[in-house]
Structures are given as C-alpha cells and as structure tokens.
C-alpha cells in the first residue's frame, strides 16, 4: 500500500461546494504537481465537516490543522509554508472568538469540542466514493458480525436494548418496529426494507449530509435490517432536490455489489439482499410513510389511514420496515459497540445522540451531533456561538412545519423527545432555526402555514380547507386587517384540524401557530389592535415618519419617492402621507440628515 506523509482533506459538503471548494481542490492538484508533492501528499474530498459557515474548509493531517475560508489564492501559501516547510499558515486558521488566538485543530473549537459523533462518525474524515476508506473505519464489520455470529432475533434484541428511537421525528422505538415487521406475515413471506431519505423539513440537512458523506453506512445498516426482519429487497427514497446524494448513493451501491456486500450470497453466508434508489418528485407529504410507499409504487403521494401500519401492510401490501437515514446511520455502531455502550449515552427515555442542523440568526451554522439531554443553551450559545450582531435571542424553532418555537424559558431544558413535546414543540428531524429579536413571530407562523397549506395533498378536508382558512386569517393579521376574535377562531380551527386530519402533516400543521400564540400572544395582539408589527417585519404595518426637528427641508425624499407620498415646502419640514406611502423605504435610505424613521 502506498504511504503518504500528509493528507489534505477538503470538505465537499453542499455548503462548501457552493462556497467554491472545487476551485480550491483544482488549485491543490496543480500546486502539488508543480511542487512534485503528489506522490507524498494525498488529497481527499470528504463529506460535510459540519461547520458550513467556515467553508471552504481544508484540514491537513497528521496534525489535523483546520483552515477556514480557503480560496484558490491561498493554496500556494498553504502548500509552500505548511506542506513544504512545516509552518502553519496562521492567517487562515480559525481564531478563538474571545481571545482572537489562532486555534490549531477542530478539537479545540467549541463547535466540535462538545460533540459526540455516532451518526456523523465518518463525515469529513473519509472519501465517500472510496469503499476502502469506509471499511478501514470498521465499515461492514457490523454486517459481518450479524451474518456470521447472530440470529435475527439477537439482532432485534440488541437494537431494542439499545433504546434507539426513530430519528425522523416521531421517536418510535426502532427495535420494536423491527420486531413487528419480522413477526408480520411469517418469517418467510415477501418483505421490504425502506430508507426514508425524503428529508423535507426546511432547515434540516443531516440526512443529506450522511447520504453524501457516508453512503455505505446506510447500505450496511439496511442490509442488517433486512437480515433481521427477513427481507430480500430494499429501497432508498431520496428527494429530487438532492442530486449529489442520489449520485453518491448510486456509486456506493455499485461498489458494494462489486465487493459482494450487496446482492446474492453476501459474504458467502447465503444471505441475499439488494437495493434500489427511488427519487422523489418534490412533494413534502411523501415524508409521511404511507405517502412514501404510494410514491414508490408510482402513485400520487397521498397518505392513507393507519392501521394497518406499514409493518404489516406496506409496499405492495407486504410487511415493510421504514426507517430514517439518521436512524440507520446509528445501527452499525450499536451492533459493534453493543446496546449497553449505546444506552449509556443520552437521557432515561431518549438514548444516544441527536444530530441538529443549526441555522438562522446564529454565529456558527452547520451540523452538530450531541448527546440527548444537552440543553438548548449549550447548543445555541456554546456550539453555535450565540447570536450575531449583538442581537438578543428570541426563539428557536424545532421540528420544522410540524414543530414549535422554544423561548428563553426553555433554554435550560435538556433536549430529548419528551422535553421538547412538553415545551410545546417536537424533536422532528432535528432542524434548529435560531431567531433573533428582529423576527416577527406572526410572520413566522404565517410562513409555516403557507408551507403546509401548499404541501397539503388535498385528500382530507380538514387539512385542505382548514389550513387554507387559517392562512387567510394569518395573512390578514400581518397585513394590518386583523379583527377581534381572530385569535379565538385560529385556536378553534387548530383544534379541529389537529383532531380530524388523516396524517401527520395535517395533525401537526397548527403547531407553529399554537406555539407562537402561547409564547408571543402580545405580538399577535399588537398586530390586531394597534396595527403595529413590534419586530418591524410586516411591510404593510411599517410606518415611515419624518422627524420635523431633524428635517432641513432639502426635498430629496420627495424627489425619490416613487409614489409622490411626500410633500412640503423647501427649507420647511416635509410630511409623509401615510395613505399613499408604499413603504418602500427609499426615502429613509436617501435622507442625508437621518430625519426619517421607520416605526
């Protein structure tokens, strides 16, 4: 085997790709060739490292020096200084936010220091397109162990004992799901294993990163699941919005087949299992398991009544096991390290870790994996580095369009399935959007309702018409046309939609409204009674005014106003006619004396 004295790892996650990491990689290839280093230094494009806002990221081993915001222009210096002379390029290193001192490795960064990586264990470390690198990190060892040393019942017992619960949002015990599917229709009947990679929650991108950065972990886990429940065929249902994930997964499946890790007679044990990818077509509701099954069958992705659950009647009417990407990513580790090891991490009822995608008004955006029970404060302020621009924290939204908002008072709650539910939100798939004081919570609620309303499949009436009606009321409120009684109507509608919708989409559609109503009722009331948006977001409620003491009467504002809403006499204070004003804000940006304010 060829030996290298150093490895240059370039993050090839979606974030770094859009920040231009491929140009950096090209430059490294050229520069290493030019300096004759290509035989002693290996260049690897990895999956997502996690700290997306620092991209493009380059990490150089053996030391593990972390370089951020690397541009093609920086490459020559890094090669000649670091790789040739052994001197770190300080100006491209991460600096500790309080001391300003350069930090050498990611282990010293708050964003990484507090993490426990199980599902993300290989992300940013291996080349996802090389199966050898996955195998070198104990990949497919769990499958080997299962096929050679364990009965299906033992596998299921191990998963049950680990306490692993579904990471897609609902938190159903994974081992129990496996057991129910194994028992359904006898051990010999036709069954299927499905991976739900229809990651639709806006703000969540851990599944995408795992598929792109560590595709073999999913193949291995699905093969283990297939052995445990007695299935011969599996499907991975991926969103069409994730073309790179589809390509990486396809490549990984081909490689696994070549190595005899998929297909007939895997590892010579007589066990056969194969996988197929199905690409979604842009319907959020397909994340719901019965809708997903309909979509794989080639139908409109409409959910159906449960029971029967997919475990007894799923794909083509056969017992089907559906787990989410992150759930599968945990499986090989549970098998190799054991249920006991796994169940020591986390809280009493929520074992292991959870991956969160942190985004929004926060300093460090990206993917983090922390033990269940970590407080929101730690995630947002230690790992996430707090709120930028000196703004105040207002709310954190978890659970996507089905979830709710957590506020200041929830910051010290240990995060797990139960505590988030008790706080009026939910775990969901792990999207965590941080909002600062400039966010209007009525507008946020309207945003989510618009989402669910648009994505409602239309099959059941409460969801199709109820969400539409709620959206109309919310839109009216944000436009300053809210009326007394609107909030009560919203609550009543929410109750009916929640209790009578067919699937999870409708049943949870009201959550963002109810949770903001609970925590920020005063903001709703300000919109309705005072026709005022406290955060200054709702355009229709903005008011531009001229402070007469500061106005010199230059007339510039009147000249730039596109709707002639400003009038006055030169050298006298001008006036804005509120009826005509289109709230474009042009006058405010042009006034040389800062005499115009927005209220």
């Amino acid at each position, binding site marked *: 085997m060829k030996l290298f004295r150093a490895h240059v790892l370039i993050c090839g996650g*979606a*974030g770094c*790709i*859009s*920040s231009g990491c491929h140009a950096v990689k090209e430059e490294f290839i050229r520069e290493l060739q030019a300096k004759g280093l290509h035989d002693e230094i290996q260049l690897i494009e990895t999956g997502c490292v996690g*700290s*997306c*806002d620092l*991209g493009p990221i380059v990490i150089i081993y053996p030391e593990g020096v972390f370089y951020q915001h690397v541009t093609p222009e920086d490459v020559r210096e890094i090669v000649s200084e670091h790789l040739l002379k052994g001197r770190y390029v300080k100006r491209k290193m991460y600096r500790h936010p309080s001391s300003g001192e350069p930090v050498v490795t990611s282990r010293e960064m708050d964003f990484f220091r507090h993490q426990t990586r199980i599902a993300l264990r290989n992300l940013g470390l291996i080349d996802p397109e090389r199966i050898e690198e996955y195998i070198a990190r104990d990949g497919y060892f769990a499958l080997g162990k299962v096929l050679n040393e364990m009965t299906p019942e033992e596998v299921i017992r191990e998963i049950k004992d680990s306490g692993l619960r579904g990471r897609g949002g609902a938190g159903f015990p994974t081992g129990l799901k496996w057991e129910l599917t194994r028992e359904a229709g006898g051990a010999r009947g036709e069954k299927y294993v499905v991976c739900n990679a229809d*990651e*639709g*929650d*806006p*703000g*969540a*991108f851990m599944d*995408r*990163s795992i598929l792109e950065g560590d595709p073999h972990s999913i193949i291995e886990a699905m093969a283990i699941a297939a052995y445990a429940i007695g299935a011969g065929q599996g499907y991975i249902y991926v969103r*069409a*919005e*994730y*073309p790179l994930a589809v390509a990486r997964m396809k490549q990984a499946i081909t490689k696994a087949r070549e190595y005899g890790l998929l297909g007939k007679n895997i590892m010579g044990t007589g066990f056969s299992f194969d996988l197929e990818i*199905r*690409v*979604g*077509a*842009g*319907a*959020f509701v397909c994340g719901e398991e019965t809708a997903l099954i309909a*979509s*794989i*069958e*080639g*139908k*409109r*992705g409409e959910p159906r009544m449960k029971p029967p659950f997919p475990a007894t009647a799923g794909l*083509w009417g056969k017992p089907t096991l559906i787990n989410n990407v992150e759930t599968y990513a945990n499986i090989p580790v549970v098998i190799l390290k054991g249920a006991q090891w796994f169940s020591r991490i986390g809280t009493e009822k929520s074992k292991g870790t959870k991956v969160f*995608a942190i*985004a*929004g*008004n926060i300093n460090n*955006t*990206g993917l983090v994996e922390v033990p269940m029970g970590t407080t929101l404060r730690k995630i947002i302020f230690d790992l996430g580095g707090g709120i930028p621009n000196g703004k105040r924290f207002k709310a954190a*939204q978890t659970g*996507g369009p089905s979830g709710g908002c957590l506020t200041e008072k929830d910051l010290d709650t240990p995060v797990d399935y139960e505590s988030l539910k008790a706080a009026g939100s939910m775990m969901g798939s792990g*999207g965590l*959007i941080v*909002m600062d004081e400039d*966010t209007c919570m009525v507008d*946020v609620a309207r*945003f*989510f309702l618009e*989402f669910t309303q648009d*994505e409602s*499949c239309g099959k059941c009436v409460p969801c199709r018409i109820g969400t539409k009606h709620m959206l109309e009321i919310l839109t009216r409120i944000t436009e300053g046309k809210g009326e007394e009684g609107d909030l009560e109507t919203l609550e009543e509608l929410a109750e009916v939609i929640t209790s009578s919708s067919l699937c999870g989409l409708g049943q949870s559609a009201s959550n963002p409204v109810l949770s903001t109503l609970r925590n920020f009722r005063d903001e709703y009331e300000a919109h309705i009674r005072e026709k005022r948006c406290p955060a200054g977001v709702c355009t229709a409620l903005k008011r531009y005014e001229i402070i007469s003491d500061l106005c010199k009467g230059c007339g510039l504002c009147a000249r730039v106003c596109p709707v002639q809403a400003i009038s006055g006499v030169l050298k006298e204070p001008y006036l804005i006619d509120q009826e005509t004003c289109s709230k474009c804000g042009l006058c405010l940006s042009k006034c040389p004396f800062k005499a115009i304010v927005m209220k």
Partner: protein
Amino acid sequence: MTASSCRASAHGCDGKYRKLEEILQEYKGVPGALIPVLHQAQLLFGYLPHDVQVRIAEELDLPLSEVYGVSSFYSFFSLKPRGKYTVSVCMGTACYVKGAPALLEKIRETLQIEDGETTEDGLFTLDTTRCVGACGLAPVLTIGDDVYGRLTPEKVPEILERYRQ
C-alpha cells in the same frame, strides 16, 4: 414549440422520441415504474408534453388519467415548457428568516416575471423551492445545478447576467 410540431420537424426531436421508446422498454413490467419514467422523460423533453404522457400511459399499461394525475401531483414535473435555466429561490425557514423574500422580489423585478413564469426569451423560469439543505449559507438560490449562497438582493442582477452570456 409543441411536442407535435417537434415530432414533425427535422431538428433531432425524432431522436428524443426514439430515446423515449428505449426508456419505456427498459421499464416495462418494472413495478412502480411510472415516476422514474416521468423523471427521465422530463430530462429528455424539458417538460412532459401531452403526447409523451399518452405514450407512457400506453406502454406502461396505465390509464392516461393516472399518468396525468401523477404528473400534476408532484411539483418537480412540469406540464409546460420551461426556460433554459430554472432560477429557484429557497424558501426554507433559514433562508426565509435571513431575507429570501427580498431576494425573490429582486429577481421578479429584474426578470419581470412572477413565480412559475418563464421570461419571453425562454432563458429563465422563476420558481420558489423548499429547503435545498444549504441552510448554513442562507439565503440561497439555485440556477440549474449551481448553488449561490450568502446572497443579498444587490448581488442578484450580476449573477443572472452570467447566464445571459
């Protein structure tokens, strides 16, 4: 250009129909083939013309109503011709709170079209999309397969201009 005039013309559209037949043969008898076939047909034609839907229905032995029902259910499938480039503004939560609505407004203004419409020169179709999963770079827009992050409305005209050349 409509599909039927495409079929009559001698500009290589026949090739597309020949390719469609190959796709249909490949998927014939495969369970749940309709959505993969629609994906490939859309890649081939840019959208799903009526006569293509008819052909798919015939060959996969499905009622045309079902093919149309599925095509119109999923937002990824288009029943109308689209521009050369699709400009998609991400309306995921992270992008929304970081200013995606202003971005969208700027594009509407620059291209003089509304969401779902195509510019007169056939170059751009404007769309909003659900989370593209690049939340760390919010707000984000995609043009074809290119992703642009950390945007402000001011950067929009220059980015669009690159595709005009």
